[in-house]
Every structure is written in structure tokens, then in C-alpha cells.
């Protein structure tokens, strides 16, 4: 795209300082009030680095192949930039604007330095194509980072919200939190059954206080888990059934008559203890003298 007679590499080199200054002030104006000393500094560094990589690549290769080797350094730089901007909470537009805002100072330079109208048009057109491609590149990199973050957070959330807790000897509790979907419920229930074997617990309390809604599939999985636990020799108590969930369950026609249910985990725990043949007594406290 860029012919060997392009003036871009030369202009980038000769007018670097002026270009940098104008470009930076444009970016700062765009960000407006969010600017602080740290932002300014990193912006200056990023802009300066970009120009260096850009100039090097343009000189070495022209704009024939932006995926090529000579452009690796610039692409890596943009990947990292995009990544950190994503993590810092910048929008994709803000990140792409970093590149687009270079057009204005650059094209003003072209106008000043290139007399011939045809040559000027060609330079502006070619440079536009390149900068647009680079801008889109940062947007894609940005999106990839966001998706990786979301995926990681989902995983962490999943692990956080499905702990099996050993309340007492022989008594397990599974406090479920968040919306349950069919796939997750199956995994959680399997974990519970395995925990029952591992801890030799006869009683498991499944608490759904933290579950906002229950649909047919989830209710069925819960019931299947209770049935499976019973086949293995353990009993389940479902606690934390809120009025709305109780209504949903009745409407769905799910039959909970064979399952012990309690309003709170505390109630369930009491039932569990008494089934395990245990009672809690207060010890006499003698004041020490």
C-alpha cells in the first residue's frame, strides 16, 4: 500500500516531538476530567512508545502486511496496551481513540510538508487505512481480555458458591447461593453425594436461602439428589425455602412430601442433631475467684 516514496517514515522521524506534543494534548482533552498525574504520565509513555514502534515498522516494511514480522513489536505493544486499559476500566472506544486521535496532527503535518495534491491524497488515504486497522486491532484485543476476565470470574464465583460444610460429626451442610442452572446443580449435587461418602455423614442439609428462583429442572435435580442420598444411606433436609419459592414449587407440582423441609438452616440443624441422637446442654459456669 505504501510506496517506497512515501513521506510517512521521514515525517514521523523529523517531526516526532511536535507530533507527540499535539497528539498527547488531544488525548488529554478527550479524557477530560478523569486526568490525573499518573494517567498523564502513562499516556505520554504509551504515545511515545507507539510512535517509535510505528515509525520503525513503517520504515522497515511499508504498509504491505500488518500481520507480518516487522509489525510484531507494534502488535505486541498494542495487545498489552489494550489489555491493561481493559483491566483499568477504560472503554474500548477510549482505547481505540488513542490511535485515531493521531490522525489529526499527522495529517496536518502532511498538509504542511506535501505540496502535490495527488501525493497528499494518497498519503492521507494510505495512512488512514493503516491507522484504522490498528484501531480495530486494539478493539479486538480489548474484547478478548474482557472475555477472559469474565470467564475467570465466573469460575471463581462457581467455586465460591458451592462449598460443602461440615457442621458437626455426621452432619453436612450445603448452602447454595445464586441462580442455579441445570448443569451447575448437577455438579453441585454430585459433590454433595461424594462429600457424604468422604465424611461418612448421615445427614445433609441443603440450604436454599440464597437461591432467588427455582425452576422445574432445578427442583427435580434437588429431589433426585435427596433420593440418591437416601439410597446411599443418608438423609437430606432442605432448608431456607422462602415463601416465593414455596409457591413456585407448589405451582410446578413438585412433590416434596417425602422430603423433610425446614424454614431455616438453624431449624434444620436442630433436627439433624436430634436425629443423630445428640442434645445440647448448657454447662454450669462458675465464676472464678
Amino acid at each position, binding site marked *: 500500500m505504501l510506496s517506497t516514496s512515501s513521506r510517512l517514515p521521514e515525517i514521523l522521524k523529523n517531526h516526532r516531538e511536535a507530533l507527540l506534543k499535539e497528539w498527547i494534548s488531544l488525548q488529554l482533552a478527550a479524557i477530560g476530567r478523569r486526568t490525573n498525574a499518573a494517567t498523564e504520565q502513562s499516556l505520554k509513555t504509551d504515545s511515545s512508545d507507539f510512535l517509535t514502534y510505528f515509525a520503525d515498522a513503517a520504515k522497515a516494511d511499508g504498509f504491505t502486511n500488518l500481520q507480518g514480522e516487522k509489525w510484531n513489536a507494534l502488535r505486541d505493544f498494542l495487545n498489552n496496551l489494550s489489555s491493561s486499559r481493559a483491566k483499568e476500566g477504560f472503554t474500548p472506544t477510549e482505547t481505540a481513540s488513542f490511535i485515531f486521535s493521531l490522525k489529526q496532527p499527522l495529517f496536518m503535518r502532511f498538509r504542511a510538508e506535501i505540496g502535490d495534491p495527488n501525493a497528499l491524497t494518497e498519503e492521507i488515504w494510505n495512512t488512514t487505512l493503516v491507522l484504522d486497522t490498528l484501531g480495530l486491532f486494539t478493539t479486538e484485543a480489548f474484547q478478548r481480555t474482557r472475555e477472559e476476565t469474565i470467564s475467570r470470574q465466573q469460575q471463581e464465583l462457581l467455586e465460591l458458591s458451592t462449598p460443602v460444610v461440615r457442621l458437626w460429626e455426621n452432619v453436612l451442610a450445603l448452602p447454595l447461593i445464586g441462580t442455579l442452572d441445570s448443569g451447575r446443580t448437577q455438579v453441585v449435587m454430585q459433590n454433595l*453425594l*461424594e462429600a*457424604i461418602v468422604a465424611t461418612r455423614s448421615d445427614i445433609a442439609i441443603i440450604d436454599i436461602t440464597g437461591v432467588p428462583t427455582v425452576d422445574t429442572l432445578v427442583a427435580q435435580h434437588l429431589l*433426585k439428589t435427596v433420593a440418591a442420598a437416601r439410597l*446411599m444411606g*443418608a438423609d437430606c433436609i432442605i432448608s431456607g425455602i422462602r415463601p416465593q419459592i414455596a409457591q413456585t414449587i407448589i405451582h410446578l407440582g413438585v412433590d416434596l412430601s417425602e422430603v423433610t423441609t425446614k424454614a431455616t438452616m438453624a431449624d434444620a440443624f436442630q433436627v439433624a442433631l436430634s436425629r443423630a441422637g445428640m442434645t445440647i446442654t448448657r454447662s454450669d459456669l462458675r465464676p472464678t475467684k
Partner: protein
Amino acid sequence: MERIPILKMGEFLLVSIQVDMHDRLALTLQDDLTAGIVKHRARGVMIDISALEMVDSFIGRMLSNIANMARLLDAQTVVVGMQPSVAITLVELGLPMRGIPTALDVEKGIALLDAAIRGASGNGSAVL
């Protein structure tokens, strides 16, 4: 012919199924246990299935039959050690296996049999 060994432990008979049983072996076990309850006047039967990686409707029926026959002979049955994946599959299969007491392992199974028998010597069998 190959048979599954039955151990006598005091008033109880203990069976531990370690092999992937073919149908005939399962039926032989059923017969052997019934005969054993009578012969030893056993009060309880414990069937340990912790080594079974699969329980289908045939084996499920065998377990039910054993429990029913034992009850007729005034003996209590308990099935112990069902693996989670087997339990999940049985539920999906739709096998209710009602009326068969279960326990997590041999130790809890014995405790259950003890309690049932003690209760039975009072005013009838304990509800499990």
C-alpha cells in the same frame, strides 16, 4: 459352581459383593441367603455393595427380593455402601427400591441392624 461367600457374624449374615454378577450368580445368592437365614436363625442380613459399579433393575429386584424374604423370616436387611454414581443412576432409572434400609458403610449398617433388632424384641420392628 461359583458362589458369593456369606459370612456369619453373631446373629447377622454379611455378604460383600465384589464381582460383576451375571444373572445366575445373583439368583444363587438370593437362594443361598434365604437358606442361610433359616439355617443360622439370623436376625439380620447386611449386603455390602460398595464394590459394585453398577446396579441395574435385575440386581435391584434381587435386593428387594432378599429384603422381602428376610422380612418374612423375621430378619432385618440393610444394604450398605452404594456408590454415588450408582445411586444417581438408579434414581434416573426410576428404581424406587422402597422398603430396603440403607446405610453408608458396614459400621453404620451394623448399628442400624442392632437398633432394629433391639426395637423388634420390644413391641414390633423399628421403623427405619
